């Protein structure tokens, strides 16, 4: 006979189906390490950085100490995590804070991911170990002022001039690119019209090459504790050996993005878990009409719905990780999860905010931060509409983008 026990499961109140029992030892270890960092180092300081729109440089060495930068990449000082462990890592970081998770994602998934996927052996040796130690910070410059969803039409140019590539153009929303050591710039080769990836680095004195400038985007409402500048490239000269060897067309940029898109689904899950756990705890404590608000039907219903979404999201993510591990995850499959999770997690954060009443407006209760950060997740890595069109094209065989 099965027994139904009451009371919250031990590990975490959001893991209602005890799904973390399905984790491998490796993934469980990653979970605990990241959770320790989040609870001990990140949560106590993050709200203040977020409020002031400052990047928490003090956390960088602590992130490095986790030994998890580089995530699924093997060798070159990277931990070679399974897809499941990598997903749990993202979930736990986002449960702490979206800005720090974005910093980590740009470094690991986008910048290091490009080099690991498209760099030559020499290029991997040159950059990855330093990046894994966070001695070198990376950035990934694809989006342009005129091209976000249709990045495929990007206009930044690369012109071969002897031993150099010369870059001209503008990029927008490029995380870390105001201080990064390794900026992977996607540009169109004027010769063959194809998109290539060229690394702009700093010189020995830590200066960017002439013609490279970065202007922070200010007045952001979400993800305030991580910086994205606009960058301009005016005749920026980069040695030929900085072109990633295997980056031959826009399709290669898409390959990098496909493997990070699943990350945005895990990230959404992390935000939803954080918001739900905060709301559940608050509802148990807050009294109105002489009893905890958790005793009202409308509140219980909301909590149950949030949990149902979280449990479903979690299952999606586990399966996605398995398929990814087996090499069977397609881009559209990852898109389906990203689209679904971004939408659901935004709703979970909204409901959590509501349960906190006026206090939900205050940064000190964290929910407001998760809610606005979710707005960003909803847009980046391909918007809601774009994901649905990627899936739609896969289903019907007909592209509806244009």
């Amino acid at each position: 006979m099965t027994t139904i026990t009451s009371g919250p499961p031990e590990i975490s109140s959001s893991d209602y189906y005890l799904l973390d029992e399905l984790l491998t030892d490796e993934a469980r270890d990653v979970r605990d390490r990241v959770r320790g960092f989040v609870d001990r180092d990140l949560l106590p300081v993050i709200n203040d950085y977020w409020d002031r729109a400052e990047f928490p440089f003090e956390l960088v060495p602590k992130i490095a100490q986790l030994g998890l930068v580089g995530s699924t990449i093997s060798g070159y000082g990277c931990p070679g995590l399974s897809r499941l462990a990598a997903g749990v890592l993202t979930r736990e970081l986002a449960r702490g804070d979206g800005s720090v998770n974005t910093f980590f994602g740009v470094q690991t998934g986008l910048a290091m991911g490009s080099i690991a996927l498209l760099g030559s052996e020499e290029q991997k040796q040159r950059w990855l170990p330093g990046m894994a130690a966070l001695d070198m910070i990376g950035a990934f410059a694809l989006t342009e002022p005129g091209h976000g969803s249709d990045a495929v039409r990007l206009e930044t140019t690369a012109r071969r001039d002897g031993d150099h590539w010369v870059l001209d153009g503008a990029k927008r929303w490029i995380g870390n690119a105001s201080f990064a050591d390794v900026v992977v710039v996607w540009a169109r080769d004027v010769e063959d019209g194809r998109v290539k990836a060229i690394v702009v680095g700093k010189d020995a004195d830590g200066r960017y090459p002439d013609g490279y400038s970065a202007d922070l985007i200010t007045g952001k409402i979400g993800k305030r504790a991580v910086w994205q500048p606009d960058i301009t490239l005016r005749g920026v000269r980069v040695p030929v050996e900085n072109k990633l060897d295997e980056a031959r067309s826009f399709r290669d940029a898409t390959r990098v993005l496909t493997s990070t898109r699943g990350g945005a689904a895990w990230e959404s899950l992390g935000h939803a878990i954080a918001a739900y756990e905060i709301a559940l705890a608050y509802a148990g404590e807050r009294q109105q009409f002489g009893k905890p608000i958790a005793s009202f039907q409308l509140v219980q219903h909301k909590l149950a719905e949030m949990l149902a979404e979280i449990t479903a999201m979690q299952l999606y993510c586990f399966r996605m990780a398995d398929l990814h591990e087996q090499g069977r995850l397609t881009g559209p499959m990852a898109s389906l999860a990203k689209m679904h999770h971004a939408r659901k997690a935004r709703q979970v954060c909204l409901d959590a905010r509501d349960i906190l009443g006026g206090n939900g407006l205050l940064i000190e209760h964290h929910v407001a931060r998760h809610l606005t950060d979710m707005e960003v997740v909803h847009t980046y890595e391909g918007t809601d509409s774009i994901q649905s069109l990627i899936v739609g094209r896969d289903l019907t065989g007909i592209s509806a983008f244009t």
Partner: protein
Amino acid sequence: MTDLAHDYLDLDGLFSADELELRDRVRAFVQERIKPHIAEWYENAQFSREIAREMGKARLLGMHLSGYGCPGRSAVEYGLAAMELEAGDSGLRTFVSVQGSLAMSAIHKFGSEDHKQRWLPGMAAGELIGCFGLTEPGAGSDPSSMTTYAERVEDGWVLHGAKRWIGLATIADVAVIWAKTNEGDGAGEGAASIRGFLVPTDTPGFSATAIEPKLGMRASIQAEITLTDVRLPADAVLPDARGLRGPFSCLNEARYGIMWGAMGAARDAYEDALAYALERRQFGVPIAAFQLTQQKLVDMVLEIQKGVLVALQTGRLKDAGTLRPQQISLGKLNNVREAIAICREARTVLGGNGITLDHSPLRHANNLESVRTYEGTDEVHTLIMGAAITGIPAFSAGHQP
């Protein structure tokens, strides 16, 4: 012919020339005085004291009150003004609500002749600022559980307690404080003993500290008030308010304004998204050319048109003097809920640019989270309507027969 993009059902045809004239005047005020500065005010979390005087000059404070220097406009006119102000920013509309619908209307409805003479003209001019202290740290949705206490002593009253989330309290000249008393029915305990007090904010023992940092409503001030041994003269009490009926009748005024205001914010977000969609090109065409974008814009228009109709009907009932408080809940609940959905959808149309203060939708959406909570949360209005429909109050579920 009506401009379908901006007034699909020709709702302008439902308003009188005077009403439209007033609306256009407020719209121009918002365009000139609020829009150019709002991103900065929001980012810096600042409320401009000067704008209060300008609103006084523009006759926007205590609009629907008569006499004592107040403009004496209709409920519909007041609603239209709230809509335009909130198209600027919910924080500025909140200022007008707190000053006019809460603080001034409490004095106007329940104050003595002396109270009215002393405070209302200056408040209508924006020279004096008022605030309204009902909510407490432990009493939000359920104000009857308030613990702030006013003791009747020989030469007056002594107030003790704490209030939370009180708009404008740090810059107010006078606070309307609701407290339980040792007089009347249910002395000291029951909600029936609740009275309102006019507390000049320079009275010893009164202090206010701003609540920060906030996610939304950053261009407005809310504060925590502490009242320690605040001694007031006997005539500080509002003579004509007893029990929660007093503060609730003020809340009804403010809730009414909110249903219009929310639609103003929604309209502004929609207009921003529409303009952007027509201009922003992806895949070689304006994004307004995509079906999914058109659907988003159409859904916004549907809800804005309906929401304005709800507000207008409520306003006409109010002007006719037949509006019942439970009817206000329908508009507050519906219009704020829809406005949030509209602003969030508008935000997505703007892509990455939608998360900056260069565009209004996410600012509005974050502001509206406050609006959803104050003046009765979604759940509270659901339960007010539920009680009206079924005859059974379910606020403290489980204890009813």
